């Protein structure tokens, strides 16, 4: 990305931190594209899905966006987070392979059911408390607004925001710790 692209990205992130949702979505979409090609380049041997890295990175960026210096460069910050998440993913999956080695025979016998939605984050989402899970799912997968979600579940908007924030927080935590 050239200097102008970086400036635009920094402007979007500044607006996002000030609470601008549209700017934030634009920032996250551009960042997702960058991290996707970064992850595809780095993951040579497989075993890690690049899209999982994209999602873990976006989530980490969201939870740690206060660590960006608002007049500092944005690309080194984004790529440092992406690298950290990539290394973390390799380490975690490496460990998991050792643990599950006994189950390989069984896994082989089953048909490959790898759907597009079969992502790490979906599994983590399923592990959330029911209240948080349904709110996060309504806003993310179903694409509802805060207001619509509040109406659907008969909650206040504040309660929806709190459930969403806590849900995202525990997803991020599980990514980092599992």
């Amino acid at each position, binding site marked *: 990305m050239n200097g102008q692209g970086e400036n635009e990205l920094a402007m979007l992130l500044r607006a*996002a*931190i000030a*609470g*601008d*949702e*549209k700017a*934030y*979505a634009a920032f*996250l*979409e551009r960042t*997702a594209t960058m991290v996707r090609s970064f992850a595809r380049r780095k993951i040579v041997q497989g075993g890690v899905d690049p*899209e999982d890295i*994209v*999602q873990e990175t*976006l*989530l*980490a960026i*969201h*939870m*740690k966006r*206060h*660590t*960006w*210096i608002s007049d500092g*460069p944005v*690309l*080194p*910050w*984004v*790529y*440092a*987070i992406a*690298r*950290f998440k990539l290394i973390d993913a390799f380490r975690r999956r490496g460990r998991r392979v050792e643990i599950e080695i006994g189950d390989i025979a069984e896994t082989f016998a089953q048909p490959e059911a790898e759907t*597009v*939605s079969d*992502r790490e*984050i*979906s599994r983590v*989402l399923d592990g959330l408390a029911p209240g948080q899970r349904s709110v*996060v*799912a309504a*806003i*993310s*997968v179903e*694409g509802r*607004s*805060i207001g619509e979600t509040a109406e659907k579940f008969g909650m206040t908007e504040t309660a929806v*925001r709190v459930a*969403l*924030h806590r849900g*995202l927080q525990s997803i*991020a935590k599980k990514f*980092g*710790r599992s």
Partner: protein
Amino acid sequence: MQTNDLINALKADAAKSTMPLGYVWWVAMLAASIVAAVAFFVLIGPRPDFAVAAQTLRFLFKFVVTLILAVVAFALLRVLSRPGSNVRSAALWLLLPPVLIGAAVAAELFAVPSGQLVTVWWGKNVYVCLTFIPLIGLGPLAVFLAALRHGAPTRPGLAGGVAGLLAGSIAATFYAAHCTDDSPLFVATWYSIAIAGLVGVGMIVGRRVARW
């Protein structure tokens, strides 16, 4: 969940803001200093001849070294808590305190008659020093590790170690007001060992708690 779905959720959460990290570090610094001061006055307190000692070069030099170490460690810790920052230039300043203390040790080796060197080096407070610097530093270390969790260290172990270094230098600054062994030989040896203990604890704990 697809990436676009995730973006939907993240943007809906955009309004939820958290405290800027720069601000958090200064709050942590203030809190850690208060915690260390309380521990110092409760546990040991300043030496009785503080006012007289404050006029000697050796006594004052202890504070020069520990305070410079604190400033350098604080700057490095803040850098380490932000992804993608330039760690190298902040880390290079870590050389300054050892150079200073090395020069002071060299001067001391000339100033003190060789028959007394061992006495001065060993001093009277080795075990006091090795006990109370870590003890005073534990509270500040906990504060800095908590602040580190708010940050995003891409090297949690290293950042934890630097948190220990900072906690140790603050503790050593307070402890220096208690200790009657002012020789750079004493400071270079025993202060360093005591602070290194906190660095080790910080590294081990940091690796566990500062992951994100």
